[in-house]
């Protein structure tokens, strides 16, 4: 009981802290905008530069780095272990393993860099950069908070809001495959090569279903701009329920979430790494080059969580008590609450990814392709047509929302139907027929 209360206290404190943090970020962005105006540029130049620092360099990197620790601690919790607790601050406090963040970074930075002699020198150096930077840049278009007026300036909590929003996401997500592939190829190692080939096949295939799964969302919200999408998700559709992506596009959500998993190359899609089979495309890397490849994976987890939250979980809308909050809070504070709600959603999604990563075994190469081309892609295409027809029939989206409700009920129904009956022993032939439906629902 004490721990339970403590847990909620910590979560509450974190949320309050996030609100404070984002209020400060808004203020900083406004200062940046003022400076830009003073220098004769449009205001958003300044706020974007400030946001690039506060959101990408501070928030994203901190969350990604904390995630390395969180993964260790959470996997330990799932496996009845204690996890990282050997670094004691002041000789006494393990602080939940957070100091490992520094220790890990220090280790990576000071480790000896070893190279295979027969590597392709330039590409070998280039690969970690290519793996890390496109992933990192994805975050630029993610709208963290709404646009509010601070210190006389309109500032938004995003680095850039290009009209091509989602297309930017596809373009850059497509680039990150080069880093992985080149890492395996340039290190001139056969297992590295195998990992690289697996990675390229997997990532390029899943790119297709990743893109297709978002077409439905684009149709529903009639935009590809993520900020516009976030605003559209605040509109009520069935009674007081807002038109969040999860409600309108449950199938799209499942396909997107699964595909994004494959893009992050984490279990159950971690065959490019496959630590028990081929050790992976980064086999020959050491020191901070390995660190970059390693961190890229975690950054990817956070970013795909962020995009999922932005597109499917209502963006920065806090959803609960939104109207009350908007009416009673100062606009800046409301913006900060929204941004904190967004980050909370991202953290929830990364946590979900951690659970799945430690729960499920790995697919095989051909199964992963079958899942993509035979299940996810057709599902996404059907979703596109259904969405298109529904939006055409009823532009108010209400019909689409009801279709979404039916889909959610169906998915839950299928999952429950194929769930193991209590006490029954699993026969070899039982449960063959349900195919991948349960599996997709599991995601």
């Amino acid at each position: 009981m004490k721990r339970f209360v403590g847990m909620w206290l910590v979560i509450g404190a974190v949320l309050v802290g996030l609100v404070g943090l984002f209020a400060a970020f808004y203020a900083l962005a406004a200062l940046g905008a003022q400076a830009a105006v003073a220098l004769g540029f449009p205001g958003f130049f300044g706020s974007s530069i400030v946001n690039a620092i506060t959101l990408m360099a501070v928030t994203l990197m901190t969350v990604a780095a904390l995630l390395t620790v969180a993964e260790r601690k959470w996997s330990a919790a799932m496996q009845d272990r204690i996890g990282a607790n050997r670094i004691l601050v002041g000789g006494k406090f393990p602080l939940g393993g957070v100091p490992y963040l520094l220790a890990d970074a220090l280790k990576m930075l000071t480790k000896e860099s070893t190279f295979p002699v027969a590597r392709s020198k330039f590409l070998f150096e280039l690969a970690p950069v290519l793996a890390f930077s496109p992933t990192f840049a994805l975050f630029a278009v993610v709208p963290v908070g709404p646009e509010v007026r601070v210190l006389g300036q309109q500032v938004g909590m995003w680095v850039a809001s290009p009209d091509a929003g989602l297309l930017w996401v596809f373009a850059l997500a497509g680039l990150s495959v080069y880093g992985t592939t080149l890492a395996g190829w340039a290190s001139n190692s056969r297992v590295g090569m195998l990992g690289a080939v697996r990675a390229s096949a997997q990532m390029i295939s899943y790119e297709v279903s990743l893109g297709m799964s978002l077409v439905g969302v684009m149709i529903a919200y009639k935009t590809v701009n993520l900020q516009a999408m976030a605003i559209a998700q605040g509109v009520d559709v069935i009674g007081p329920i807002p038109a969040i992506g999860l409600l309108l596009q449950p199938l799209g959500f499942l396909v997107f979430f699964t595909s994004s998993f494959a893009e992050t190359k984490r279990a159950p899609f971690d065959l490019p790494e496959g630590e028990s089979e081929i050790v992976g495309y980064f086999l020959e890397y050491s020191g901070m080059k390995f660190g970059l490849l390693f961190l890229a994976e975690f950054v990817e987890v956070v970013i795909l969580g962020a995009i999922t939250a932005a597109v499917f979980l209502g963006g920065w809308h806090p959803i609960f008590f939104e109207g009350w909050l908007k009416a009673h809070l100062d606009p800046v504070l409301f913006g900060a609450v929204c941004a904190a709600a967004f980050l909370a959603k991202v953290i929830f999604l990364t946590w979900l990814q951690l659970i799945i990563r430690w729960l499920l075994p790995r697919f095989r190469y051909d199964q992963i392709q079958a899942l993509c081309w035979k299940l996810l892609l057709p599902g996404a295409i059907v979703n596109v047509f259904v969405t298109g027809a529904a939006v055409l029939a009823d532009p108010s989206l209400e019909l689409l929302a009801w279709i979404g409700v039916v889909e959610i009920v169906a998915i839950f129904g299928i999952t429950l139907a194929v769930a193991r009956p209590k006490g029954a022993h699993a026969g070899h032939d039982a449960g063959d027929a349900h195919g991948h439906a349960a599996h997709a629902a599991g995601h």
Partner: protein
Amino acid sequence: MAKDTDPSPLDAAPVESPLDAPFPSKRMLVNLGPSHPAMHGTVRAVVELDGETIHGMKLDIGFLHRGFEKSCENVTWTQVFPYTDRLNYVSSILNNVGYAMVVEKLCGLEIPDRAKYLRTITSEMHRMCDHFTLIGAMGLELGAMTVLIYAMEARDLLWDRLTELCGARLTSNYARVGGVSRDLPEGWVEKVERTLDHSVAMRNEIDKLLTRNRIVMDRCRGTGVISRADAIDYGFTGPCLRATGEPYDVRKASPYLVYDRVEFDIPVGTNGDNFDRYLIRIEELKQSERIVRQCFAQMEPGAITSDDPRFVLPPKPEVYGTIEGAMAHFKIIMEGILVPPGEAYSYVEAANGELGFYAVSDGGGRPYKLGVRAPGWNMLMALPQIMEGQMLADLIPTFDTVNMIGGEVEQ
């Protein structure tokens, strides 16, 4: 061994029309091991890959060769026991018992009932340890590391109980010629029963995580298949043979110790694939637990070693108190027990299958010759055939489910 530079077959697809561009592809030799996360112990597999498909595989074993058989010829019969611990190091008592039985067969020695029960109990507990290790490792090979940790928890609790009994976690050295080394400590039975309850909980947890898991089913069904006829030809025994449908278990086929007095079933598979091997091991965990509990109920107090002074050390008070005792002790320790001349083969059901010991005695204090039939050997030799045409990713779990134990196979 084919080298990389050898004229590798350029597997150009047959050109069917002039428009087909021949695309020569080369097969790739990949070295897995000897130090590789998937290779238990140290064994090397040289795999010839066409894409991800295995075309030809060579196994290179011997990195763990210790000269077991030769070493045994240089020590007395009783000093062999610690060496047998290192055969299948996950379930050492099964090896101890197997070796003790061949010596007893040569000596014509009958062991007391309680010793039989103790041997059965500890053997079955070690069988559970072995199966837990294997199932956990299979989870690890498939990428489900959580399963490994759960299995390790169950296994280590069982090992803890055996440590209380034998004094060592891994190298138990528990059996003796004519009986066992120690009786049960006080309160041990209740503790073991609690541990068994816990292991049942862990087993159910693993069962829930894996057995109906879609990915596990996809990965394990129909991979690593060997037919019943092939399995018999290769000399498979144990869970791998039973997975193909052949209900052969030494404990039933030729009962030893007290296996004829306890009730248990022999699970049999149908397909001989990885999934069947996994299911059989889950089921055998249940059966082993059943045997242990029955033994606890049936066991009665009594002597734990035979009292034949030719083969068994005299009790300590006699050693320290009487000249005869001291001399008998000295003779047995220094000279070794004098096993009557002859040869014998004795076999038990170890965790991987039939573990046979073949011993020849010339009447002296040391084995003249000792041979081991390691169950893992036959399974390992079949691996290249099993894996032909399958995918690289399937090699790893198959390597696990046939359960090659370096210490045993390479001796």
